[in-house]
């Protein structure tokens, strides 16, 4: 399940979606050129980009895994060989959006056409919904349920998602993970992180009980109840290794027994750091099993961001590492929707992050730390799991790679040392945790990887999800009041509103609905089927250039329960 990392937008300078508009007029790519005519002044750059070759290698990589990395390197597309001409292509995403929106579909060829059912089957392939069961008609959880979905752009997808209910403590965990340089790290984090968090939250007695159970070979108390889509898998091979690392962690927690009640914020931070540490250690120690050995190395050398929500009653904690984002949908008194950010992106656009990185390293490195809005000119997120290339010392990296399996040793990527690499670590997995007390007007939470946020403004996300969840009736009602409205005008207005609403009913899943908008929105903010159909029928190797993997979890809150909790607290 190793992913091709060649086209990863984060780790590679080859064109990513929306960051760099891809102007193509090559006769070898008629599909693309027809669908996406590009401004002529960008044309000369194409040759350098050698898109066709990239594309072919993507397909190739799919089968050959890491080996393709070397081919990339040889072709000079590898992202950490900074090339100024590519950097020149760098455009603010708004420009790209504008470009896309301004496109004229009139001449679009019909071969792109997918029927609405085909579009739906693509959009709905990965959708998953979970409803918190009601007890005696009284739902005691502040979470009503959640909808989640993914739309791949990479093949295979590098995003991961997780959701689970804590069984030994209260609360629910939900998270999205955006992998780069392969999906290994995102996969591992999606499997392991919630266990680390749950263990961090457990009281001392429960930890003891669990440890005793393991010791005496008794059945273990279940810690998490997972809510997984059938496509969300766990790696069987590594489970023993992962478990022993986890066990070591709780044993340490038992020994440390501070006697203090567990603070959620601290638990989240500890869990993130500990897991990253374990990933790093496992790679350093290696495993006698060659498959596992290779796996832990792949996990460590790839990277992943994480955005995790912990909901317990009215207490909502968001722990974020990287550039995925959590956003709260708030319904105002007048029924309109607004968005509240519950996380900060860890990237070059975040001044505080840039500041932090610069503080952590000597002044001499100030100039080389952040280049072209990337860490060391390479990495877009400023915090991430894995990515030991940005964490280990050069000696350690060399030692591990040399003693590692041949596949690793042959891989140019793993051998490559970032430029200006003087005072590692440059990267951390430590999350920023935001605590929010839920209010009755907080109707839902959206966790999504940057694939969504690149295409949609959070305000639109709030409105679309809000209107979807509340249905037609909460669309801002029309009142005639004292205005002079004729029947004809009203009829026109209503017909238009209905058209907008009808797209809502196609989806049973809020996340799917959001993806539909993210991919298919036209300049009027309504879903354009033709556009949607084109975007989804892009060949695998091109999809990545027009969009990123999108993973979304929409958590719906129970305002009644939240209201009741609030009253109790008052």
């Amino acid at each position, binding site marked *: 399940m190793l992913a091709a990392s060649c086209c990863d937008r984060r780790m590679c300078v080859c064109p990513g979606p929306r960051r760099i508009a891809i102007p193509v007029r090559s006769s070898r790519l008629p599909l693309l050129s027809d669908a996406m005519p590009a401004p002529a002044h960008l044309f000369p750059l194409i040759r350098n980009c050698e898109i066709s070759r990239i594309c072919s290698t993507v397909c190739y990589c799919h089968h050959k895994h890491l080996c393709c990395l070397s081919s990339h390197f040889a072709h000079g597309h590898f992202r950490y060989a900074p090339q100024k001409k590519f950097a020149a292509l760098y455009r603010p995403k708004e420009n790209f959006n504008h470009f896309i929106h301004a496109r004229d579909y009139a001449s679009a060829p019909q071969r792109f056409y997918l029927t609405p059912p085909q579009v739906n089957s693509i959009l709905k392939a990965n959708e998953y919904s979970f409803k918190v069961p009601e007890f005696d008609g009284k739902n005691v959880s502040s979470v009503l349920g959640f909808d989640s979905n993914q739309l791949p752009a990479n093949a295979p997808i590098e995003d991961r998602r997780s959701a689970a209910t804590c069984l030994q403590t209260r609360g629910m965990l939900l998270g999205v993970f955006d992998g780069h340089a392969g999906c290994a790290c995102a996969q591992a984090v999606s499997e392991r992180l919630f266990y680390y968090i749950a263990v961090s939250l457990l009281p001392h007695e429960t930890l003891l009980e669990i440890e005793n159970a393991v010791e005496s070979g008794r059945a273990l108390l279940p810690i998490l109840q997972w809510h997984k889509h059938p496509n969300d898998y766990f790696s069987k091979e590594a489970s023993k290794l992962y478990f022993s690392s986890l066990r070591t962690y709780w044993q340490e927690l038992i020994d440390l027994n501070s006697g203090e009640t567990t603070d959620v914020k601290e638990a989240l931070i500890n869990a993130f750091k500990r897991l990253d540490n374990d990933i790093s250690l496992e790679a350093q120690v290696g495993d006698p099993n060659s498959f596992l050995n290779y796996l832990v190395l792949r996990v460590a050398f790839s990277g992943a961001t994480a955005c995790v929500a912990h909901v317990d009653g009215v207490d909502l904690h968001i722990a974020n590492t990287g550039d995925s984002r959590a956003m709260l949908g708030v319904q105002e008194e007048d029924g309109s929707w607004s968005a509240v950010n519950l996380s900060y992106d860890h990237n070059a656009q975040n001044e505080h992050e840039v500041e932090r990185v610069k503080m952590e390293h000597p002044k001499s490195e100030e100039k080389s730390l952040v280049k072209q809005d990337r860490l060391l000119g390479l990495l877009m997120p400023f915090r991430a799991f894995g990515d030991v290339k940005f964490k280990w010392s050069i000696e350690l990296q060399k030692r591990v790679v040399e003693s590692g399996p041949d596949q690793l040793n042959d891989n140019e990527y793993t051998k490559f040392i970032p430029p200006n690499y003087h005072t590692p670590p440059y990267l951390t997995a430590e999350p920023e945790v935001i605590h929010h007390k839920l209010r009755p007007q907080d109707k839902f939470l959206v966790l999504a990887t940057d694939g969504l946020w690149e295409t949609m403004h959070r305000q639109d996300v709030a409105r679309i999800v809000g209107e979807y969840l509340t249905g037609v009736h909460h669309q801002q*009602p029309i009142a005639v009041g004292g205005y002079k409205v004729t029947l004809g005008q009203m*009829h026109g207005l209503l*017909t238009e509103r209905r058209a907008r*609403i009808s797209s809502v009913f196609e989806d049973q899943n809020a996340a799917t609905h959001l993806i539909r908008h993210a991919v298919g929105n036209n300049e009027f903010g309504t879903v354009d089927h033709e556009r949607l159909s084109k975007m989804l029928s892009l060949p695998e190797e091109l999809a990545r250039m027009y969009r990123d993997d999108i993973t979304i979890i929409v958590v719906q809150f129970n305002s009644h329960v939240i209201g009741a909790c609030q009253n109790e607290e008052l």
Partner: protein
Amino acid sequence: MFLRLLSDTRWRAANPKWRRMTCSRRSTSSTQELHPASLPAQAQVVICGGGITGTSVAYHLSKMGWKDIVLLEQGRLAAGTTRFCAGIVSTARHVSIELKMADYSNKLYQQLEQETGVVTGYVKTGSISLAQTQDRLISLKRIASSLNVMGIPCEIITPKQVAQLHPLINIHDLVGAMYVPEDALVSSANVSLALATAASRNGVQIYERTSVSHVAVQNGRVTGVETDRGQIQCQYFVNCAGQWAYELGHSGKEPVNIPLHACEHFYLLTHPLKEPLASSLPTIVDPDGRIYIRNWQGGILSGGFEKNPKPLFTEGRNQLEIQNLQEDWDHFEPLLSALLRRMPDLEALQIMQLVNCPESFTPDMRCIMGESPTVRGYFVLAGMNSAGISYGGGAGKYLAEWMVNGYPSENVWPLDLKRFGALQSSRTFLRHRVMEVMPLICDLKVPRWDFQTGRQLRTSPLYDRLDAQGARWMEKHGFERVKYFVPPGKDLLDLDQSKTFYKPDWFDIVGSEVKCCKEAVCVIDMSSFTKFEISSTGDQALESLQYLFSNDLDVPVGHVVHTGMLNEKGGYENDCSIARLSKRSFFMISPTDQQVHCWAWLKNRLPDDGNLTMEDVTWKYTALNLIGPRAVDVLSELSYAPMTPEHFPSLFCKEMSVGYANGIRVMSITHTGEPGFMLYIPIEYALHVYNEVMNMGQKYGIRNAGYYALRSLRIEKFFAFWGQDLDAFTTPMECGREFQVKLDKGMQFVGQEALLEQKQSGVYKRFTMFILEDHDTDMDLWPWWGEPIFRNGRYVGKTTSSAYSYTLERHVCLGFVQHFDEKTGEELVVTTDFINQGEYEIDIAGQRFQAKAKLYPFSSLFTHRRRKDEVELSGYQRE
């Protein structure tokens, strides 16, 4: 709002006494001054609700001479649904009793202004019901037929004529229309106030801002009313609380189930047109577009019944006040589209308001009227299904008659509260059902439609078995009954497509079931029948039943008696079969929907004697009907008992074993006139007995059959069914069942005098069977029921049921023939000669078919199969 302001002032101007009482209210809002007059300590009647129904009941009661009446209104008079009502009086109704009520209301409102001096806004505008499809036109033609024989002018017109009557209508998509010139518009609040004014003059005391908290009941009788302003003792309570009637019914210790539920209802008011519409312009009803349009102050008022109604007040009234309901334009959009399609010129017309006016709906789209089966003296009139103005006058009259005389002047069983029981009172059921009922107001009413919501509530233990064998279901009183069985591999049309006025797609299926009943044996699950057991320690049971039933029940043990349960006028309150199980216990079988009515009737009339017990055992027995000549073979093989007529004569009942199961009550009746048996099986044995019967029956060609086959069989045999053919206004003499009446049984019984008199003076209507002569089953419209019957070109009555007879290969209609004097219209005695000497025609949607009238079934046709049914049938031949 506008209506309201108008009406307030006029009402007070017309009633000086009232003004004195309430004038303070306008100047101050202080609550002490709101109630200057204290409530009386007692009254004969307390009416709760000052809407159109409450005021109409008060008006009619006071007219009939009852004076000691108090009417309580929680808010202000005519302030609820009545205030918002669109004010259309329309007589175009499907059900005959509703048609009569609407007709009476129309006539009442017309003279009300003259009578009371209160301006009612009555304008005779006429109404036009449009048809966009041929099926709709058929439906309208059927209504037109009934209107015409009622003497209400009505004609079917062409689209062109529509355009002449109304200048704004787009007629391009119309196939025809029905014009009722005497339909009217009123200001509903003012009508209500006029009725209140008249009632008040007749002595009715009216109190506003007084709400009833509950009704006090003692020993099953109303004793008083508890209000927020004190207590009133009373003998009668009338619940006219509209959409609050359900809650009010449940507020007391003894709940009264009034199954109704409110839905939001929207209509649009506009500013006047540039050239204001004439106030005499006819009202337009466009059922295919689901809308109605009337002229309103130079503009229009248009509302409708959408496909996706919004039920409200499910959890009770504490959610919202009527006045605060929101306009919902998005919800109204389909109706607005329909309006602009019908009248495109209105595009430029300016909107004034979208009114949200909740209406209450009932589970079967008919209003609720009558006395509670559990609390005597507790009357109800509510659930008008958005036709409160059309029905209000007539309904009030019937209820007043009911209270004063003990019975109304027309058969109101279709509206009787007792057609419902507790089982229709679940809020979830009502919420779901009314969401189906409200759109139905505009849907095409085709024969044999069934409700789709609130199903599978009561089922036989065999339900799953039968369903798996292709059963198609209908529902009666919450009970699932089989219509017919679709053979494997054969698929019928979707429900929507099978709606037709012509030959239905199940024709051949039912035909083969009927054939099997005639030639082999069929089994029909008839568990839905109401079953009571009445027993006593001494002779009390026999004595009481002899008094309450017209036939002689003092028969040897093991005999089954068909008998009517008659009222004082000799009319059928119930038609049942009673088996004498032992000297002192009786097993009584009645139609399914009699469960509440019959129970209440008997409870109120059986002596209050601890030694006499009556039990509803409906749920204890599964009933299988084995119909056909080979039933006897199947049963004798299963029981090792001879079942031939010598050993098991007709109308006989015996407990015996069937298969392994013992204690099965076997009766030699089939309710169809065919040979066979009814098996009453304790439910735990049901599956076993069914399996045994089906296994054993295989070699005799047994198969499942449904009620459609049963219906065809009983109608061709001239069997009348209560609730369809028979009602409280039909006596045994009128339907050829004198043999079921034992005038000389040696003791008095209810209805005896009336029957004696009828026997001497003759009957004024006669149940008759009609065989359609020139009717093409494949091509012509099928008869249903309610078709006018013409004798020598003159209207003489209506059909009550009809079916295709697979034996006669003709349609058979059953119905009553009356004899109206040609000059005076007076009802005359109907003699056998009158029936026999006439040329008959049946009018199906305006088309007349020749029919042959018969007073006796085709005995000759059936003789060779009539083995065990001689006794059952002989009654008919005796006359």
